[in-house]
């Protein structure tokens, strides 16, 4: 992929602006940008004829969000679950070579998340609390656009969610405890932005949880190798 000279100029200017204060603070010689480094970076081979065949490992900390209709039938209930997620993305099999367009590399993979959520509602004397351990495993089909500076990876996902926990209703000191089991399916779309090894990941989709529809989304900060 060849960049126009004007785009190179813009990127170089941006790096100068970003790097200058740090360099000044350290009282070091202004050595950036190094023309040689840029050329090495920009001239790396990236074309459909030479796809990136490396597998990628992802680890991130997502905040899983689910919105569904609550017991009132009208007002929605929001559930936010902090989690840890890991996965792998492999180069897609040859059957998916047709997706390697515009310099993209198709990837197939999976990830798995584990999270815990705690919620409460009600008043001081009459309340409900819920503790839930939630696990989500998804299959992923992604397109890996290895652009200058950043890698952009739009993807689609489909998978399942399961969980178990306890919920209780407490009335003036008397408590009733119930088990809470969750089974569901989810699918949707997302995107990973990768800058060096750091990733920002956003996705959104729909699901069916214990037979009821839900809208799901997540945002995550993580690493990709």
């Amino acid at each position, binding site marked *: 992929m060849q960049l126009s000279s004007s785009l190179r100029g813009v990127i170089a200017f941006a790096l100068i602006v970003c790097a200058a204060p740090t360099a000044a603070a350290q009282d070091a010689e202004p050595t950036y940008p190094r023309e040689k480094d840029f050329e090495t970076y920009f001239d790396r081979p990236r074309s459909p004829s030479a796809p990136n065949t490396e597998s990628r490992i992802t680890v991130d900390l997502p905040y899983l969000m689910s919105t569904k*209709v*609550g*017991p*009132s*039938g*009208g*007002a929605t209930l929001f559930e936010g679950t902090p989690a840890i997620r890991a996965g792998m993305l492999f180069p897609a099999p040859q059957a998916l070579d047709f997706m390697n367009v515009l310099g993209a590399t198709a990837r197939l993979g999976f990830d798995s998340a584990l999270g815990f959520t705690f919620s409460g*509602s*009600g*008043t*001081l*004397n*009459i*309340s*409900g609390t*819920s503790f839930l351990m939630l696990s989500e495993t998804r299959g992923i089909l992604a397109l890996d656009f290895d652009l200058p500076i950043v890698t952009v990876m739009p993807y689609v996902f489909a998978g399942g969610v399961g969980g178990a926990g306890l*919920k209780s*209703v407490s*009335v*003036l000191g*008397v408590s*009733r405890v*119930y088990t*809470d089991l969750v089974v569901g399916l989810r699918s949707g779309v997302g995107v990973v932005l990768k800058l060096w090894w750091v990733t920002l990941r956003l996705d959104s989709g729909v699901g069916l949880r214990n037979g*009821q529809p839900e809208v799901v989304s997540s945002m995550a900060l993580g690493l990709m190798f």
Partner: protein
Amino acid sequence: MVTSSTKFSGRTAVRGWIAAMTLGTSAACAPLASPLDAEVLINTAPGDYELGVVEISTAVDLATGRGEDFDVLGGVKVAGLEGIDTLGRRDLYPDYDALRTRNRETAGGVAVAPNLTTVEGVVRGTDFDSLQYLTIFHNFEQVFAFYRDVANDGSEATSDFGIVGFYAELVLSSVAPVPILGADNAAYYPMTDGWLTLRVADIESIPLAMNPAVIAHEFGHRSFMANVFRSSDAAFEIWRTNTATTTPDNRTLRATNLLRGVDEGLADLQAVAFSRDPNFVAPSVAVAEVSQTRDLNGEYAQFATYAILDDASLIASTGIGCTGPDLSESGFNFYCLGTVLVRALWVGADSDVEVLRNEISPAVVRALPNLGDRIVAETDANEVIDFEIEYILEAIAAELTGVRQTRVCDAFRSKFFQQITNGLVPSCN
């Protein structure tokens, strides 16, 4: 032969599994109909609440909120501006039924989806919202029964089908749904002839909709509407004209404030009769001033009179303020007037809840249509409402006889001295 037998067994097993799943699905989708036992929050004694098992007797499907007398609906958004607009459209909505149908359509509503489980034959809500829903359903059942059987209200208030908005909202307009009232309250809205139970936000103890007496109070507004303003076409038109008036003059404002005070007071009376608790609102209202001004045995109720609702000396002696705009101004605290009226009836019942239930409560319901007739008779041809406090005093006193009438008239004399001494309440002469 063995293969054939195996195939047969396999098919049978599959058929059996399908049959079992079908039955299971049918059972899961079958209505959760009465009679049912359910665990709800119950009011065991004045101020005391606990979890208890009750019989739900009028549920058509408890799982979706459908009942014989009312439906509990989710997602109800009552639109204020559209409601006022329908009042002025006599061509489209000529009577109360048409008006109500239109406003219920605008408010919308969907089936509730509580999380219920059955333990040893008892239906339980497995989270706070679902427990609240079950309690609300039970409360409305009890209140319908109270008005029918104890207050002897045979009007449309007890015969017409009602709707209860679970976590409903009062919004400015359906086009611009800016919430006006969204949490920590319960209300009756005459335009939809339905109740709103709002979600919990800052209530510390018993949510208003879980307090059965509060539901009895809100039902009292439906009883007032049905018996006073739906008792005749003329009364309904007066209500319609005055509710649609957005810029009332002082005279109309005074009449409206008086009527609202009477409406609130009589709703409190029925709530006390229902719950046997003269301070029924206290468990649900954190603001002490509010509960103190409505406590029938409280200092405000004892010392306030119609002539002195918010006198400085009264506030100084009771420490309770019921101050605010004058009777002829917008924002008048009509609950204070209501307390003065109900205190008189409470004293007239010898502060005995059984007398209140058996004698005063039915007498008040019987008096309401007469109040409607009096309003019609006193209102001018332009349907600008006219109302004086003696109208309700006379209507109630006329429905009582013997010792009870004497007691109530004595109590009226102490609270409404001028009206009695001036002969404006003939039944007390």
